[in-house]
């Protein structure tokens, strides 16, 4: 397959912080915009979330989708390049480990390829993609369950092993980096232990900056259900992290 080589591999759809204070949240305890000015209550690590890549315009997106519908494999090639970071990150967020994220993200793109002909032009493509990744993940989980494959608890165990591997790694890491890596792994394990839908909603809202309306649309759930599940997920995350005494000193 010979598609024109792109001089730069844009991941233009990578997650971007839509605004400085995406939550509009002012904590009375810090009296500062939590996400915007980077005020932190407990930790002082750098936030690596925003992506400076330029976003694709709506018109460009529509042209690209139309070319994909017309069977232009190079257009699909470009679509993968543009969406892979977002899709992979979301798959990782909900699947909880790299291997499953890779499977889910690849399968999601194959499903996009096979069904892009049915995508309605007036619908939101990003929402559609998130929905496909979610469905692929849930389908895989169903399969895994019925085949009695690895359980969520086992994922957590695996991740813990990988933490210890990381910690024992003789690559000298600056102490802060090691600490933040370890903390991220603890948070990752806590998210992995949440029920599927709590984790999916949590990932969409907190890590992919999706609004309640978009999440409701992606998951075909009423907004009220999305809100209540997110609230339960947050409380559950807090409770799980509370047991990690080193996090809260």
């Amino acid at each position, binding site marked *: *397959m010979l598609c024109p080589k792109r001089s730069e591999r844009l991941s233009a759809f990578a997650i971007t912080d839509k605004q400085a204070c995406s*939550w509009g949240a002012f904590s009375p305890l810090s009296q500062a915009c939590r996400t915007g000015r980077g005020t932190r209550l*407990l930790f002082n690590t750098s936030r690596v979330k925003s992506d400076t890549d330029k976003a694709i315009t709506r018109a460009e997106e529509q042209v690209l989708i139309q070319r994909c519908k017309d069977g232009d494999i190079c257009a699909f090639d470009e679509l993968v390049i543009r969406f892979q970071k977002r899709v992979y990150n979301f798959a990782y967020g909900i699947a909880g480990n790299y291997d499953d994220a890779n499977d889910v993200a690849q399968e999601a793109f194959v499903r996009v390829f096979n069904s892009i002909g049915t995508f309605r032009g007036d619908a939101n493509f990003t929402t559609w993609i998130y929905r496909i990744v979610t469905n692929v993940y849930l389908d895989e989980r169903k399969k895994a369950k019925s*085949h009695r494959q690895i359980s969520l608890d086992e994922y957590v165990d695996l991740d813990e092993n990988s933490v210890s591997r990381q910690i024992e790694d003789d690559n000298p890491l600056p102490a802060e980096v090691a600490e933040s890596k370890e903390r991220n792994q603890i*948070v990752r394990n806590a998210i992995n232990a949440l029920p599927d839908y709590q984790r999916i909603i949590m990932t969409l809202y907190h890590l992919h900056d999706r609004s309640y309306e978009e999440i409701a*649309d992606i998951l075909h759930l009423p907004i009220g259900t999305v809100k209540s599940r997110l609230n339960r997920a947050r409380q559950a995350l807090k409770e799980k992290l509370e047991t990690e005494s080193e996090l809260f000193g």
Partner: protein
Amino acid sequence: MNCAKAQDMFSAYLENVMEPSQRVAFEQHLATCPSCKASYEKFNAALMMLEEMPQVEPPADFHASVMARVERERRVEPSKVRWWNLDWQHVFTIRVPARAVAMGFAVLLLMVMAVQFTPIGHSINAVVFPGRTVGNPVGDDDSSDAPKAGVLNSGCDLAKSGLCINVSNDSSGKAYTLRLSSKDGNPVDYSVYTRTGTSAKNGVANGFVSRGQQASVTIDVAHDRQTVVTELKWHYRGRSYDRLAFLPPTFDADASAKKIDMSFNKTTVYQALDQVSRSYGIVILASGNLNRTIKFGGVDDGNATDAIYAVADKANMTWQALAASVYEMEPTD
């Protein structure tokens, strides 16, 4: 404001969506309650830690792997037969969840045939009992390419409900065949009923099926483009089992590509499944109480899996795709 109420409001406060009066009450409570204050700080901190999770990079070969898979998909144009073969393989490896067995739920194995049957008698009441024939004989049905009982049973060894059920639709698309088989030494008694729309329940067949033998029940598709809901009841070791199969007027093996808008408003789960089965052309096996009412729900431009998910979510049921366009649903325990 008490502590429980304050804890409920953490999210609303965080998102700054509280009424001013509530906000004041909440802040006053936090100012006077060290426990809630500490709890909110942890809540806040936990979410900050969550949001600080770094992004990950796809593996270096990710793009190439996706394109290689897509290239393979393009070269092998899927045909109907290929689909069915895939399903066959998949279905044979299904294992019944231990939980379902433990709960005594009907445990079934549903299989979509890998082969296209030679058309057989389409009439209802065609029932083959071991050793004798009741109703319209299905004749040499067993000489078709359908897997023989021995093969069938090998996929059924976990069926503690005593009965294996295999559903296929014939090549003409005018009928479904249910094959019932048993591994147990004792014959399993069964009854089959059908219902279309709001019509009365209609007894179709009953009898016994013994180990190594199988009974076939042919269910014609409805003429009025309705779903035929088939109910299977049987007894096994002192327990009663009951399972519904929603059989659509036109089976569509490719229902995952079909996009439909559909809404449920004050319908029962039964009605919703009837509608989903009919609209997408999918077979749904369901157990449990389906009389529960769904207040509202539905799918917008969704495929069959979206629709099944939408119903299952409202009805508090679990579901799984057994094969392309074949789903199983059961109550969440």
